[in-house]
């Protein structure tokens, strides 16, 4: 569809403004990683790289980062398995309570995180379960499941069921069909869902506050530093490094999920 030049310019300008809006705080974070002072204020009085070395030497930060990575990996794995299972069940079968499944799975995201956090906290306290990596993972996996579920379900709805039947007609049993036919078909949705789940878990702070006990995930460590107000550039350094490291997976994921093509022009 052809748009007038005026319309194109206006839309482009608007989009540029939105991108600038989204990028502004991130640029600030990057710049303030070089803040010589330990208190954040404007304007910046010079640049300094002195915080980089102290950040990497900070044992608490490294522990928190490693805990976040571990929790996110385990939670994502659980979410991938459980989310896919649920998506297959909903896609293939008609059963009592089928519509409820989608609603229930989205509850951890739709309800405020503080409720999920409080609820799990009460449950663990009630069951005498100690707060540890396990409780953190339980909290994260619970809201990550729906992300994978949505992605896989959407993908399944776009695939043709006849492919599976054809595979079985050719003599493959259920497991082989799954491995050689179904899995490749949904692989991009698994990647997209997994990446999104990882991102959600890695940056989650509200539910984790209630399920973490004495350990710090990275967001909890960051919040502690924000409380202190004296070592903020370290926080900026960590965030900057994390963003830089995640740029590649994000671009990759975007390539993968866009491959189905776009209905345009």
């Amino acid at each position, binding site marked *: *569809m052809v748009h007038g030049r005026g319309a194109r310019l206006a839309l482009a300008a608007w989009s540029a403004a939105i991108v600038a809006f989204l*990028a502004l705080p991130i640029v600030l974070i990057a710049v303030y990683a070089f803040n010589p002072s330990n208190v954040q204020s404007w304007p910046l009085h010079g640049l300094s790289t002195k915080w980089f070395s102290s950040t990497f030497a900070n044992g608490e930060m490294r522990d928190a980062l490693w805990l976040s990575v571990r929790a996110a990996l385990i939670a994502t794995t659980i979410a991938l398995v459980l989310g896919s299972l649920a998506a297959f*069940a909903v896609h293939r079968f008609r059963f009592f309570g089928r519509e409820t499944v989608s609603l229930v799975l989205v509850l951890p995201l*739709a309800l405020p995180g503080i409720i999920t956090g409080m609820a799990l906290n009460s449950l663990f306290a009630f069951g005498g379960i100690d707060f540890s990596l396990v409780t953190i993972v339980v909290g994260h996996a619970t809201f990550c499941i729906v992300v994978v579920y949505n992605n896989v379900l959407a993908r399944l709805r776009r695939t043709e069921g006849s492919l599976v039947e054809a595979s079985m007609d050719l003599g493959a049993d259920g497991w082989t069909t799954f491995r050689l036919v179904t899995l490749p078909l949904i692989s991009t949705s698994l990647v997209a869902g997994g990446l999104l789940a990882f991102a959600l878990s890695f*940056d989650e702070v509200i539910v984790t506050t209630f399920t973490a006990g004495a350990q710090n995930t990275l967001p909890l460590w960051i919040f502690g530093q924000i409380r202190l107000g004296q070592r903020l550039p370290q926080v900026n350094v960590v965030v900057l490094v994390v963003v830089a490291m995640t740029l590649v997976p994000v671009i990759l994921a975007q390539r993968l999920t*866009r491959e189905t093509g776009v209905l345009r022009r």
Partner: protein
Amino acid sequence: MAAALDASEGLSLRRRASGALHRRPAARALLLLSPPAAWFVGLYLAALGVLFVSAFWRVDGFTGEVVHSWTLDNFRTLLSEPTYRTIALRTIGIAAAVTVTDAILALPFAYYAARVAPRRLSRALFVAVLLPLWTSYLVRVYAWRLILARDGILNWGLDHVGLGSLNVAYSNIAMWIVFSYIWLPFMIMPVWAAIERVPDSLLEASADMGARGFTTFRRVLLPLVLPGLAAGSIFTFSLTLGDFITPTLVGGAGSDFIGNVVYRSVGVANDVPFAAAFAVVPVVVMGAYLLLARRLGAFEAL
């Protein structure tokens, strides 16, 4: 080859199980559904159940122990004191404002990125929208403190342009700006996807029939994009409704949200029953909102 071997040596256990399952769809359904169901029912729903049942209990002031005696005191307090009504209305109001703002911000951007921009640019825009989600939420909110402060970047910029300075730091307006910023990617994604799915031919046909740009937008595009907007709004509304960190970091004196009171009740006063009682408000509001959103087709567009 494998099939031939199987036929000659009798069916292996795996194939027999696979065959048996294939004939019993109910068993397959059960097998698929039990792990996630067990997780959700056994952990999440059970936890929610205990939480909301505890809204009817109370806590001993000095020792902090939850006393399992049934009482409606928590709800009575909530309904009788106007403070809580104010807080609830403020929370819902700002959540609605943020939702509307994000919808307005997202639509033109998503339209441009989905239909107008060249493919390379479109992909770059996608990354640009996703990247903030990978940057720590806490730190992005904290960066806004710097932008909105009295001696901060916004006022510095306005000053240079000669527009004087604003006093928006630590206020409800600051929270509205920050929330709109933080949840914008969540609104853009489903709207983008929805706009992508609209076939070109529909828009062209509308133009062929003489409708000008805005009319086509209003009567053809908007209804088709509505499910995407509804899906995005679920996120912006619910995430704002339950948040307490942004009010703590950028809110001012009169910026308490439901989440703040709940968090203080649990994390500070250790009064879980009261927190649970107040938490019923966002649950009810979200429940109503989800039902409305489902009618608008949001669940397909998630």
